[in-house]
Structures are given as structure tokens and as C-alpha cells.
């Protein structure tokens, strides 16, 4: 005969005490696991371990725990910079703290952390013009709790959603696969913090992709409803906000640069009716940068490579060769511009754009 096990019923008081004690114990154990494994490198840099390639969560840890004297800050335009090359060419020891589509507020978070840590003497700052042309910035995709010293909100890391439901299981899974000899693609995880956020190995470059994309998106290309004055005002406000972040004693040198978009980008800007505003803001940037003693401006927007579409994966994103070219230019001073260049600052860009148009007008106009 089967004997049915009788359920052991607890008193309410015992149930409540058990609930609170057990919940606390589980959360404590979870916190200790995260503290020990530290998937975001938030407490220490690991000796030799795969780090998940998610810069949004890793950057604060790198800024806090890595050894460096320079930092690269900006959008995806900066993600393929070669750190060893920068060390070799520029004599600095940099870390990369870039975030795709980095907003002004995102940059503020990063720069505030850099200032607090006080390690970076030189900063390389990308002024990405489309990012400057945005309003209503928010930090929805930033793990803001990783950027401050508030121990209480570390709970969002130790027992948080992104840690436990996403990064920790994936990171642990990668570590296991790595341990049994499976090679994890660098796009997902890496041992080398120099290579966090890199995407160039997985990108496909070529003129044919850009032309195809240009044709497909032609129908959606509409004139902006904003006036030139409105666009200029918005962009100037954002530029000022960014430059002010670097106006401090912590940064001995601030290398600001305008990234080399493809000439199709300028064609689109022209079609949307924003060319005049962008040209005006470029000049504004040069005069604004000139006012800061610790800043210099490099302009790569008119270089010959911008007309060779085989260097691009889309209108704005260029190959690593172009990043390397920029590093060489930082070292040699090529592409460095001064306040005296202001009257003719846009000439080279306009000339490059018009030549590009003349040479490619057939398919540019047909689309």
C-alpha cells in the first residue's frame, strides 16, 4: 500500500522568517559569484580570461581598472582604432572607450569617469556630425549604475538583469567552450581589451554595397523640415557641450577629429538640404576648438580615401586602414587644421565632393 507523504506545514511566522532569510542568502550568494567572476571587469582586470565584447557594460570597468595614460572616446567611428599602433606611433598608452552612436550624454558619462580616475592625460575625441544633429538625448542604453561610486546601486550589477539573464550566462558559456578548445569569434568575446568593440573583421566593404544601398534608400530620402538655422543651432549646442567636457586640467592634450565619411554621405546631406548647415558647423567647430588651449583639430573629411567607396561598409563607416591612416596623421600632423585655415576650411571638402559627383553622377542621379 502506498503511503502518502504528509505535507509539512509551517507556521506563518516560520514561513515569513524562512522566506526573508532564504531570499537574502540566495541574493548574497549570487552577489558573491558576480563579484568573484566579475563579467564586466568592474572590480578588477582579469589576468587571462575571455571578456564578452559588449562595450556598453565593459567600458566603465576598463576606465576604472585598466592602466593607461590616454583614451579614445567617441562613436563607432573610433571602434577600429589599433591600440598597439597608437602606442607605437604616438607614444601613448591608450584605452578605447567608444560606444556605437555615442550621444552627448553618453560622452558626458564616460568623460566624467575619466576625469575622476585621472589617468588619461591625452584624449582622442571623435566629433561625429550626425550624432551632433540629434535632440532629446537619453541614457536608456547605458548602464549608468556602473559609472558612479554609489555602492548601493552596485546591486544592479551584482543581482541585475543584464548580468544574470544575459552577460554572465553567455560569458560563462564562452569560457567553457574556450576551455574545451573551441575558438570563440572575436566579435563575441576577446581576451584583449584593446580589441573590445572592434567590428572591422566582420564587416563587408565595397562600392557595390554602397551603390545598392543608395538605390534602395533613394525613395526614403526626404528633405529636412528643419531650417538651416535650426540645424546649426542644435549642432552648435551639442558641439559646445562636448568640447566643454574636455576643458579641464585633467586632460593635458585633447585631439579632436572630424571623421572621414564617404562622399555618398555628403551627397545625401546635400539631398536632404542640410549641406549648408553641416558646412557652417564644421567652421564653427574649428573656431570653437581654437579657443581651448589644450585642444587641436584634425579634419579627415576631405581626404582622397573618402571618394574610394571600396573603403566603406556604408555611407559613414570606414575600414580599419582608414583608422590606421588617421593614427599616422595624428603622429605626423597631417590633416591638422588651425584657426588661420577658417576662411578656406570647407574648400577641400567641397572640391572633393564636386569631383566625386562629376565622376559618379550617372548612378547618383539615376537612383
Amino acid at each position, binding site marked *: 500500500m502506498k503511503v502518502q507523504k504528509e*505535507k*509539512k506545514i509551517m507556521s506563518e511566522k516560520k514561513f*515569513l522568517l*524562512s522566506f526573508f532569510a532564504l*531570499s537574502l542568502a*540566495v541574493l548574497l550568494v549570487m552577489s558573491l559569484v558576480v563579484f568573484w567572476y566579475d563579467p564586466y571587469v568592474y572590480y578588477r582586470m582579469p589576468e587571462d580570461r575571455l571578456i564578452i565584447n559588449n562595450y556598453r557594460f565593459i567600458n566603465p570597468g576598463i576606465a576604472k581598472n585598466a592602466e593607461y595614460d590616454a583614451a579614445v572616446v567617441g562613436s563607432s567611428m573610433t571602434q577600429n582604432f589599433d591600440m598597439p599602433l597608437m602606442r607605437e606611433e604616438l607614444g601613448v598608452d591608450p584605452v578605447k572607450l567608444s560606444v556605437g552612436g555615442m550621444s552627448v550624454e553618453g560622452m558626458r558619462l564616460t568623460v566624467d569617469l575619466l576625469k575622476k580616475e585621472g589617468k588619461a592625460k591625452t584624449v582622442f575625441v571623435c566629433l561625429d556630425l550626425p550624432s551632433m544633429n540629434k535632440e532629446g538625448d537619453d541614457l536608456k542604453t547605458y548602464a549608468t549604475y556602473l559609472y558612479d561610486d554609489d555602492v548601493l546601486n552596485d546591486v544592479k550589477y551584482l543581482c541585475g538583469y543584464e548580468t544574470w539573464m544575459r552577460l554572465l550566462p553567455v560569458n560563462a558559456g564562452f569560457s567553457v567552450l574556450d576551455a574545451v578548445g573551441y575558438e570563440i569569434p572575436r566579435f563575441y568575446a576577446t581576451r584583449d581589451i584593446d580589441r573590445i568593440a572592434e567590428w572591422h573583421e566582420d564587416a563587408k566593404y565595397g562600392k557595390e554595397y554602397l551603390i545598392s544601398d543608395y538605390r534602395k534608400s533613394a525613395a526614403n530620402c526626404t528633405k529636412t523640415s528643419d531650417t538651416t538655422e535650426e540645424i546649426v543651432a542644435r549642432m552648435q549646442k551639442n558641439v559646445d557641450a562636448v568640447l566643454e567636457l574636455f576643458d579641464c586640467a585633467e586632460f593635458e592634450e585633447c585631439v579632436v577629429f572630424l571623421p572621414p565619411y564617404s562622399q555618398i554621405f555628403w551627397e545625401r546631406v546635400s539631398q536632404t538640404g542640410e549641406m549648408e548647415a553641416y558646412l557652417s558647423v564644421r567652421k564653427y567647430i574649428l573656431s570653437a576648438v581654437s579657443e581651448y588651449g589644450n585642444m587641436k583639430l584634425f579634419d579627415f573629411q576631405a581626404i582622397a580615401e573618402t571618394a574610394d567607396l571600396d573603403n566603406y561598409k556604408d555611407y559613414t563607416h570606414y575600414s580599419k586602414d582608414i583608422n590606421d591612416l588617421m593614427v599616422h596623421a595624428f603622429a605626423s600632423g597631417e590633416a591638422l587644421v588651425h584657426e588661420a585655415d577658417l576662411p578656406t576650411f570647407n574648400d577641400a571638402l567641397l572640391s572633393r565632393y564636386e569631383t566625386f559627383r562629376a565622376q559618379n553622377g550617372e548612378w547618383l542621379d539615376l537612383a
Partner: protein
Amino acid sequence: MTFSTYLFLFLFLPLSLLGYFALSRAKNPVWQRLFLLAASLVFIGYAGVLHLVWLLASGTLAYLFALWLGKAQTKAQRKTALVLGVVIQVGLLAYCKYYNFFAENLLPLFGKDFTAVNIFLPLGISFFTFQQLMLLVNVYQEKYRVGSPLTYALFLAFFPYRSSGPIVDWSVMSEQIEDPSRRRFDTARFTRGLYLLVVGLAKKLVLADTLAIFVNNGFAYEGALRAPAAWAVMLSYTFQLYFDFSGYSDMALGIAQMFGFDLPQNFDSPYKSESCTVFWRRWHMTLGRALTTCVYIPLGGNRRGLPRTCLNIFLVMAVSGLWHGASWTFVLWGVIYGAIQVFERISMPLLEKIPKTLRVIGTFLTVNLLWVLFRAPTLEGAAKIYGGLFRFSSLGLSQFSVLAEDGIIGLPTPLAVAFVLGMLAVSFVAVFCFENAYRKAQSLVLDKKTLCWLVFLFVLSFVHLSRLSTFIYVNF
């Protein structure tokens, strides 16, 4: 301040409970009530002082009219007090919530241009307006009278139900507020409350907020959704809305129980209903009761023959549609439900011959289809999802990657499909295979299994707390 935040769960709620029960030793119950009122005012005021001012102004007016109704000598005086009281309450609601909607639709008829006006929407206005309308109607019908101003103020502001219901009648709360046996800490009631709070948290944070990712991406998708993705979006919203609102209601009931108050049940496994009529008896039950008191019965209810009953049912559902939001999608949604319920009323003997399982499936599908209208910002937006439901030209599984995208991590298609379908499967099991949380709480077995389950849900919810979101019904 919403329930599912660190601030509420680990600071506001524990401090409020501690203060409240510490004062239970005071001989005069007024101190305890005053403390709970103050805590509630802090809760509301945290959203903005204007919310507080509006609630107090609207509540004071309703209280004065309820006093007038109670003291009025003649029927004419009573009628005047009722009509004035109702007009003021409905007028305030109409101004805050419907001004732009009516102006946008009516002004062009008179050849005038419409410019949207930015109007302040007080927290929980749709809920406290109905609460006050019920009070006025019931006092008019001499079911009860209002009590002391302090009891009334606590009834009005009690924070567990202030932002999104349940819509509680004065008779339910006033008796409990003044019941001395409820002043002391009751371990059994507190345990039941904790159970409901944790289950509600899990429904909201783990299920609803995850499903919300698929829903938001699906409705924002600019291309043509294929059938698998469109069905996934529609089902996700059906489950999201249920877990969001019933999760909130569980939390509200649970928190109230921790303080010693029993609030009325708001959800009774509505997706297991065998008709839309039954569905509306089991979904947002306290709104149904409020609409019955304030609209259906004053219109004559079912006492004036079948045609008039059908018209009354139809009108109640149309009002329900408009209550949910000021847009034509809500109106159409309510009107369609009205028509369906009239149809069910007339043909119930015939419908009852269909096997119950088939009726449940049919009702669930109907409710699903109508939620699309409820969620879509415009009729065109709804048509886009409806069109997708029948777009079988290709599977379009890559669209699941778009549905699962949340701005931080993109999943490859197979993982995205597994994630979306996995969440839907869990939701399906939770809705159709689990016992209703409210009923389960009433006969809670305090064994190790329940303890482990509750700890698991709490820890899982705690982990999800770092992901921010608001409750859908706060918007209504």
C-alpha cells in the same frame, strides 16, 4: 513611484509598514490612520505635487456633494446634488482626458482649426473619478452615508490602489478602516499579502516587461510583418497586458493585505472564459462593477426588456472603450465588444450547445484580435498587424530577431525564435495551467514547496528589477 522599483519595495513599503504597525499600540486609532494617509500622500506627491492637489480638490468636492446628498431633505434637492456632483466629476475627467480628442473631432465640423493643448493628467484620475461616482450614486440610492473626513481621505488616497485601481467602493474600505480588529499586525494576512505581492512582481517584471519588448518592436516595425511574427506580436500583447495589469492588481491587493485590508479581486483567470460576456466579468472586475453601478443600472439595466437591455450593454461597453483612452481605436474596440455581447445575449441558448473548450478557444482568439485594436496607435497601425496575420508568403523568421531586439543585445534568428516562442509558451502555461493567484492566496499551503517557489519568484523578480518600466494601466 511605482511598486516595481527598489525605492518602493525596499524603502517606502518597509518604512510604511513599520510606522503603521508601530502606531497600532496607540490607543487612539486616528494616529495610525493619519500615518497611513501621510504615507499615501507622499506616494502620490512623489509623482508631482500637482497630482496631489488635483486628487484633494476632486476628492473634497465629491465629499461635500456626498454630505449634501446625505442631508438633502427632498427628492429634488437630492437629484440636484447628484446631477451636480456627477457633472463636476465627469467634467474634470473629460477636461483632463478627452478635451483634445473631442476638440480634434468636433472643431473641424464648425470650420475651426484644432491645436492640441497640453493638459495635465492627474495620477489615477480614471480610477478615482469612478470611485467617487460610485460613492455619489450609492449615497443617492441611500445604500450608505459618508463617514468622517479622515476615513474618507484615507479611502480616497490609500496608496495601494491609487494609481491603477482596483476601483474600491466606500462601503468596502470605510468598514475596514474603522475596524479595530484590523489595526494589529496579522501574520496570516501579511503572509497572504506577501505571496500576492511576489507573484504580482514576477508577473509584471519577468513576464510582462519581457513580452513588452516583442510588442513594442512589432508595432513599431515599418516593414510588412509575416504571419509567424504577426501572431507572435498579437499573442505577446495579449499576455503582456494580462500580466502587467493583473500583476499590478495582485501587488495592490497584496500590499493592502500586508496593512490588514482586503481589496476586491480584480482578475479571475479571464482568458479561460467561454464568452466575451464572461470575459468582461472576469477582467478588471472592479471596473465592471463601477460601470454597472454608474452606467448600466441608471440606464435601466435589464429591467426594461431585451431590446433595452441590449442597448444598455452596448452603451456600457462603448463607455468602457472611451474610459480606456481618448482615441477612435478605443471607441471602436468598445463598440465591437458591445456588439459581441449583445449577440451573445441574444444567441446564448444556441452558443451553449458548442463544446466549452471550443468556446474558450473562440473567445481567446476574439479577445486577441481585439487587443490589437486596443494597442495600436491608429486604425492603420492595427490594420498592419491584422494584415500580417494572414501573410503566409514566407515564414520571415528573421523578423523574430527584430522582435527580440532591445537596443543592447541583438540575437541571431534561431535564438530569437527560441526566446520569443519560449516566452509565449511560459505565458501560456502560466495563464492556462496555473491556479488563479488570488484564489491560491486564500488557501495558501505554507509548506517547503510554496516557500521555495516564492523565494524563486522573488529572486527572479529582484534580478529583473534593474530593468525599468511603467505599468500600462497607469496611462488610463
